[in-house]
């Protein structure tokens, strides 16, 4: 933020702080929220605005006569939000980059892209206050975005099991009766319970208290 203020050219993962972003979200219809440029711009806008707001609040604290460390402490709420927004943008961009660089079949890429779009849309929905606060996005657009989220859930639901199969984690490494590849959950929960240490004896050690108590 300080370097942006001084006009220095930024490089690296914070270069967006200097980019000319649209002041308003350009989505006009629901499906626009599937576009990478629209989604990434929203994250860039959010990160830039909360970073700059944190810098502004820091400046105001200093102007009040507070020392730098006291000003910093008084701005933790803004600063942590700024760091989170910056990291969230990094994850969204990395996800899109990962999807765009795959050479899998079209159905597989489509599945991954749907997941990526859902990740980005879900994050905006969860943090919509940041974008509504400065008027970047309006209530109507949020409604379209959340409708798109629901449509994506319906697209991903039928392939959910295949998606998690693709993590390729064998049962022995997953170590979960509920998550077994064969889905035979209930019979194996029963087998697992029978092996529990408390089931080694029909009458537990605690009977030394139970027995006399019942006879009292």
């Amino acid at each position, binding site marked *: 933020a300080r370097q942006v203020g001084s006009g220095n050219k930024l490089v690296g993962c914070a270069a967006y702080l200097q980019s000319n972003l649209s002041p308003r979200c350009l989505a006009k219809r629901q499906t626009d929220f599937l576009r990478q440029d629209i989604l990434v711009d929203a994250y860039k806008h959010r990160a830039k605005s909360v970073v700059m707001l944190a810098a502004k609040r820091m400046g105001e604290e200093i102007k009040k006569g507070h020392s730098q460390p006291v000003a910093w402490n008084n701005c933790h709420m803004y600063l942590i939000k700024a760091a989170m927004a910056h990291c969230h943008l990094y994850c969204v961009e990395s996800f899109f980059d990962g999807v765009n660089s795959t050479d899998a079949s079209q*159905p597989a890429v489509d599945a991954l892209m749907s997941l990526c779009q859902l990740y980005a849309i879900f994050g905006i929905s969860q943090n919509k206050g940041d974008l509504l606060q400065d008027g970047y996005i309006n209530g109507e657009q949020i409604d379209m975005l959340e409708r798109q989220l629901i449509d994506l859930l319906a697209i991903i639901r039928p392939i959910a*099991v295949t998606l998690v199969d693709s993590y*390729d984690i064998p049962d022995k490494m997953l170590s979960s009766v*509920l998550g077994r590849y064969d889905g035979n959950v209930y019979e194996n929960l029963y087998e697992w319970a029978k092996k529990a240490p408390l089931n080694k004896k029909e009458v537990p050690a605690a009977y030394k208290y139970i027995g006399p108590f019942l006879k009292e």
Partner: protein
Amino acid sequence: INPDIAEERRNAKFDPVELTYVIDGGKEKTERRRYLESEVLNDPSFDDPMDISFMTDEQRHTNSVRKAIQVVRRTQELEISNPMELIWFRAATNPLEVPSLSLHTSMFMTTIVNQMTLEQRSQWESAAKKFELIGTYAQTELGHGTFLRGLETTATYDPRTQEFEIHSPTLTSMKWWPGNLGKTVTHAIVAAQLYTKGHCMGVHMFMVPLRSLETHLPHPGVELGDIGPKFGYSNIDNGFLRFNHYRIPRENMCMRHSQVMPDGTYVPPPHKKVSYGSMLPIRSAIVGNTGWALAKGCIIATRYSVVRRQSELIPGTKEAKILDYQSQQLKIIPNIATSFAFILTGKEMMKTYFDSLAEMNEGNFSSLPELHATSAGLKAFTSAVVASGLEELRMSCGGHGYSKASGFPELYTTAVPATTYEGENTVMFLQTARYLMKV
């Protein structure tokens, strides 16, 4: 195969292995990973004597160390030295637990390689690689965590004997938490305030022998122990360490970047943050690891949610698969998306780390502030999201998610320490914010 889950797989429009290749980075890598995993999964010496949920903490510690040593033997026999392949192999041996001796192969070795001179490396690197000694990384103290400058352990140079005297001057200066410190390791990289010629030169790293290589007893002047039962990590002897005027040779200071000459003259490092370097690969790796922890939770919740049926979605029909309810989809599908995002972001982060490391090895430290800020923030962001995500996925399995049979209790308690280790998350966010304010 349960007919409900079989039906789901018949609906698939693509072969899941295609996405496996994307995640692993190509077909060859997937095949190599599967081969290495099969070496573990088909080797009875890696089997647990019983379900770890049924073991005591001491049984788990002993079993975990046994398996870690077996990993060393087998990986040497199979001539596996690639870091990623070693991670795959170890992960297969410890499905739900963090593997024992993992700090030896991560931060202990990383510090030797990145913070010691070539001469020092010739002494320690080979011994560490051959496991002639077992090490850990002792930074955190009982009363001090992420704030490095607050550490109290001292290393005072004595030019007469050319030794450092390592000392714990207060109760709060005891080293507290390092993995395998309590009962397992023989050596530690110790972070201590360096004093020479009467001046404090800040925190530096020292190679400190802790236990006899013959008897495994602590050396005189070294007090060691386990810190006791924890929320998770039941197989790991996280330890405490107290020094009482314990002496080590001058050559045991990590001197690649800053040095103490025999007469006590201090030579400062070229960049003030180079000594923080050992944290960077771990923080970078945490990003991808969190994605994998969440992935495991997603597998469990998704598969269970197509087997479990509950209530009538349409009155008068069969009980519905719970994944058919939109509310269940909202609990699970965003977490699937998030796990993919974090796995791919983790790959990007590790690439950035290795690129920066190559630059730093050539004396260019310009990327260090961005790497430091990014790895700190992403570690905090991803670990926090995964902690809440795993809890949401556990709850999506109803009551059975609370049983250890589900895997969630071990999965959760193994994943959530990432929110506090290698830098408490709020402090990490503030470090990222500091960088953002500067730029």
